[in-house]
């Protein structure tokens, strides 16, 4: 059965028709064409599909689209504003925290969400906030440095 939901994605109000079993991840990728958010496991274990839902990071593969009625969603495509990168996009990139880039959208959302709730996180707090974002390439160190740099700049 299909449902019509209203959801705000990256500041745009969207009216979407979704089947009951469709996840937020699939809705973003397949209904709205927002393919920046990645699918790494479909099981809430890798963090590649992390988006912000009402300000909090969620694994979008674990949220049903119908649960998003009235919600505000931010994806990696919504981080930059008017062509200007979000500070964490800039700093994680500058510090070399991006290699294959498949975990990057989720990493950046987790980072943005952390800095929104804690402007001056300790290294351990950064690690804790990112523990659900698996990265196989970088070894994490440069991602962490990027987030520390972003916190200093904001």
């Amino acid at each position, binding site marked *: 059965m299909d449902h019509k939901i209203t959801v705000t994605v990256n500041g745009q109000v969207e009216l979407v028709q979704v089947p009951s079993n469709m996840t937020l991840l699939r809705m973003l990728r397949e209904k709205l064409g927002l393919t920046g958010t990645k699918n790494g496991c479909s099981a809430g274990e890798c963090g590649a599909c992390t988006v912000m839902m009402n300000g909090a990071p969620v694994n979008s593969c674990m949220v049903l689209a119908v649960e998003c009625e009235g919600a505000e969603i931010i994806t990696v495509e919504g981080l930059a504003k008017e062509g200007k990168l979000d500070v964490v996009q800039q700093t994680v990139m500058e510090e070399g925290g991006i290699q294959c880039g498949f975990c990057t*959208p989720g990493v950046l959302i987790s980072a943005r969400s952390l800095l929104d709730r804690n402007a001056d996180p300790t290294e351990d707090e950064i690690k804790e906030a990112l523990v659900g974002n698996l990265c*196989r390439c970088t070894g994490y160190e440069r991602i962490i440095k990027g987030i520390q740099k972003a916190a200093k700049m904001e």
Partner: protein
Amino acid sequence: MAEVKTPTIIGQPLPRKDTYDKAIGAAQYTDDLQFGPGLLHARIKRSPHAHALIKNIDVSKAEQMPGVKVVVTGEDFPGRIGLYIVDRHIFARDRARYVGEPVAAVAAISEEIAEKAVDLIEVEYEVLEGVFDPIYGASKEAPLIHPKMDEYYVPNYVFPQKGTNISNWFKIRKGDVDKAFEECAEIVEHEFKVPHVQHVPIETHIAIAKFDLNGKLTLWASSQSPFAQRDLIAKTFNMSQSDIRVIAPYVGGGFGCKAGVTMEALPVAIAQKIPGVPVKLALTREEEFYTNFVRQGLVIRLKVGCDKDGNLLAMKNTMYWDGGGYTDYGVNITRAGGYNSTGPYDIPNVWTDSMCVYTNHPVGGAYRGFGMSELHTGVDQAMDMLADKIGMPQDEFRLRNCVQGGDTLVTSMKMHPTGLDQCIQHVAEALDINKKEEPSSPTKLRGKGLALMWKAPSITPNSGSAAKIALAEDGTLVLSVGGQEIGQGAFSAMAQIAAGVMGVPYEDVKIDGPVDTQYSPYEWQTVASRLTWSMGNAVKRAAEDAKRQVLDLVSEHWNESPEDLDIVNGMVVSYKSEQEMSLEGIGIYGIPKDGYEGWKGNGPIIGRGSFMPNYISGLDAETGQGTRAVVHYTTGCQGFDIEIDKETGKIDILKAVSAFDVGKAINIDNVKAQIEGGLIQGVSSSIFEEMLLEKGEMKNPSFVDYRISTTTDLPKKHEVFVVEVPQDDGPYGARGIGEHPMVPTIAALGNAIYNATGIRLYGPPFTPEKVFLAMVDAGLTE
């Protein structure tokens, strides 16, 4: 042209070409491509048995399901496929040889329907006795997994043993090992075991295939090897390579598992039955774990001896590689294990048997530095044991015995200049390796250890690269390559070389992508840490060619000699007449003659460059000896200062140190990034990772049960040294560094554990449980 020096841009830590798109979510990966409503989704019926005869397959119920468009089985595809030994069918035909082997497939209008239809396929099996141990598999008692092995195609450097499960037996017979052991003052003899591990890219395998109505094929795939895939698929499906187009967008992590052909032939086979319609197959994470190519398990038996002064005299090395149900890639890993079997040590007498054994485990493939982490896990722990026995400090023993330029290697090849000794000294000094230091608490034990490594690109002897550079109207450069950006920064290194040669700003070099075999220049595969070196040479030559054309054109216009001209910061300059000219327009339109009396130039400028090593020699089948086995060796050393919690067995890395000789860093920051990321992947496989296989079935195919390193598992500190002893045929002296940083890690951690506890663990992963129980057995804790 002015004297050629290394341009100042070479080595600079310039920003990568690919990361902006990745940071804003614009970088396209294969699953991001849109195929419209006609797209079909495939799911695979897989064997639940490790070894079984297929007696009957009934697809009638699946075919009748609404929404199902195609059902295929092995009956439809008699051809075999494989990179080295051609031993696989696309779908199992008479026999399944590992759990998860494709038996049949469905393509339907949705993944859900395809999944349900796959469940309706009924397969009747006769379960056979399986082989789950490579030593047993190599014995005469083991059932034969490939009774027709001798009918398979193999290249002339792979040696299957008829009537056995051994699909390749590589031998080294150098010097007189028995006599040399008699002269040894100390000998160490032991067996080490390395378990199967998975590559775990965050992007799982995915491919979409479409046959046009005229019979031409397009394949979109997350791929390290678009050209090798074109070739292997052409051979299997009896097509012309030029009728196949492989398009490979960004790869979300490869580490070797997206090399060769793994699952990509499956959607091709299905799509062949329904021309005009694209068919997509994306592996689930579970499938990625249990059906994808794995890093093979290894049992390695080593005997090494030295004289009273610590000089290595002899090594006997017997390796049983657990190749899995098919060894189309594994036979070459076995070969690499063989010709590298001493590790980076100068040993005059060597006897090696490196055997690739068919088992009913998952299929072995290339994993970052293939064969080398496994080999070095044994070799460098054995060296540690021997140094200990002869009573020599670890660094001193290694400095005494490590390979140096001019040494005669295990294959009789002469070693080129290498900075391995410098790497050892860096690590030893940074760790103060011989100083015993106090743990931070009485409940902890502290120790230090190091290990060496070497690795040569394990490639076909004549694997080639090509590159093309075109000037755009505004004077910027478009660089085309067939090598893939899999996260390692290859595109950026290539742009840096092109900018350096051409004398243009780095920002003015654009890399065109995605790699597309219809338009991109040829590249064998993005594997073996070979791109910076091989593709780098092709790019350098293409840039030199383009530059020569530009200077010829402008020198004609100025009526000067091209020798007096150069391109500096994007401007053509004359050192003689001090004239200047922008590149704008001239690469496309040429230069107008005075008074517009016609034009100078031969049309749009395209620089082209190719490279292929043409000096690799064959090795004798019985002795493994030859003049030049490999193109070159990247060498290095890694060490750890660790603490072990006596109450939990948990290892904390206080400090890690890595030093590698990269010949010449093209981009120092990206080199360091590879070393850092590789270290963590190595630590992950040392401490956490193991595929738990029971009768061939993986028991932990999820991120919850197969743990990889997270942000909370990092060393407190990692110091990196980049040594640069140039490679004679590398671009500006460069060698590869992609794989090497995780090669010595297991051995180095094993050696540090021994130093801390006096306990030698003969096989990773060094889990807290394993370390704790070993400490209990040794009476160190209770």
